[in-house]
């Protein structure tokens, strides 16, 4: 059965059972690596992606809910050659150890920063609560999200001036 999904701006036909969780369609059919399998039951956040402007747990979201919706994964934020502001911030703050949880963290942070790039540290901590990190990289992740907020504000200011 075919499902039509819009992922990182591209509309794709996927030959998958509509009950398949988005995670497996992203990884297995579309060969995107950002979203990770962590628990499969929505407890750890490693699979977080964005649907529209919201952070969503792709491991518990069947694709049948997503016809016509816009899905963004960490691959949609930038590339190795041209990292986006959030990716840049995570590199600058060296905010990863094993890095397995990081794309999920980034997508939840992206949703937060898109809504309010001036968000404060307390709000970042509260917002990231559903996402687990086992290496203990939390302090750097918080710093990276703060820095990304700054980068985004700078970008939107310079964008506004041009």
């Amino acid at each position: 059965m075919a499902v039509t999904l819009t992922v990182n701006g591209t509309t794709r036909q996927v030959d998958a059972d509509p009950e398949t969780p988005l995670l497996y369609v992203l990884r297995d059919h579309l060969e995107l690596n950002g979203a990770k399998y962590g628990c499969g039951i929505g407890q750890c956040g490693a699979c977080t992606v964005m649907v529209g402007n919201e952070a969503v747990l792709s491991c518990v979201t069947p694709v049948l809910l997503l016809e016509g919706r816009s899905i963004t994964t960490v691959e949609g934020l930038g590339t190795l050659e041209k990292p986006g502001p959030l990716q840049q911030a995570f590199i600058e703050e060296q905010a990863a150890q094993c890095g397995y949880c990081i794309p999920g963290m980034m997508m939840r942070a992206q949703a937060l920063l898109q809504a309010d790039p001036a968000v404060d540290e307390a709000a970042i901590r509260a917002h990231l609560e559903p996402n687990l990190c086992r290496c203990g990289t939390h302090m750097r992740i918080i710093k990276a999200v703060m820095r990304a907020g700054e980068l985004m504000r700078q970008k939107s200011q310079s964008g506004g001036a041009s």
Partner: protein
Amino acid sequence: MRVLKILAAFAILLVLGAGIFVAYAWRSAIDPVDPPAQTSFDRALVARGADLAAIGNCNVCHTAPGREPFGGGLGIQTPFGTIYSTNITPDPETGIGRWSEAAFIRSMREGVDREGRHLYPAFPYDHYTLVSDEDNRALYAFLMTRTAASSTPPENELPFPFNLRMLLAGWKALYFREGPFQPDPIRSEEWNRGNYLTEGLSHCGACHTPRNRLGAEKKDEYFAGAEVENWTVYPINGNSPAPVPWNADSLTFYLRHGWHEHHGASRGSMAPVTANLGSIPEADVKAIAVYVSDVMGRPSQERIARGEAASAAARKESEAPLTVRATSTGNRVGEAIFLSACQGCHDGRRPVPFGGLNLHLSSAVNASNAQNIINVTLFGLPAARGEPSAIMPAYRGVLNQDQLVSLLDYMRERFSDQPAWTDTRERVAATMNGEREVPIYRMDGTTQAPPETSMRTTSWP
């Protein structure tokens, strides 16, 4: 002239009436005292007070998220406006540090503060009036030995005339019956203890009994269920929607642990209640359960049979989870969503509390409306902090209104004998657009730890 005379007489009557009312309504101030030394309280009395405060759920209303315990400042939404809880720490300036024991007991018994002002019944003195002097002394000892917090709550946000405290005297005249509690001599000691705790400190009726237009509990609809802060509070009388009828044992277990295998996990504003009750001696919880299950009444044979059928259906699905697909419903959208997004956890394969409840056993799908399922589906069940607890992901970011309505209709049809809900779409819309504001509470952890300072949190995830 005649008109004038009548007017004058009317005016005199009015003044006289007002005078009598004021005289009736007036309460004297009780002199402030120097805050008693913490060491002056007997430790055993303080410990008893701690248990009573947990039964009374004092921390839940008197603590704002992220603020000091018992420091007040939580906004409580009422149909008349927002009332902010007071600081009941022993801080002399902003708390109750200058309240004598007599002033404290009077506030509990009569709903009047130390200065003699009437208190709004958001402070449930219509229940607390039943508390014995002995228990009040223990509560006083407990509160006066807390850490003082210097914190003044915001002003209440009440429009005229509700901002006139004097009017509360009239409210009291209509609805308030002063205690203390009178035991029923023909009932057992345990039942009386349960009645005393349930009606008094536990103030279960404050949420579980519907209120009239003036905010008083409807005595003739005792424990008939209500809606509080946009959470549906289930009837805990003969109309309990629980498929498997409650009994004293299951209720005791549930209240102490925050979950029961036939009923699921406590959540929403019930989560702090079970968290509090988890930290107190079992005998008191059992007494409450004995009394409440008596109010629920002995289930009919028909109800028992329905409960057994529900259990059997749940058991069957847990044994062969993946074969459960076809149902009679023609709601294909709702069914597809349920099977792919919900059933994986809610098939009963893994027992409650860490597994999702099989919905054949759910009070929520049998309730009078879908609000609680709407709330948990949209906002999830946030993990307890540092303790084992149930967790449920939120679907706010992914379900649209039509999808959620289809899902709810499907659940109702598949898991309940009750007629379809009629106001689901309207509730879904109002909850999704924020018109119905839903406070989110963390889950009650499975340990016996007291609840977090405030279990209120943000949506998850």
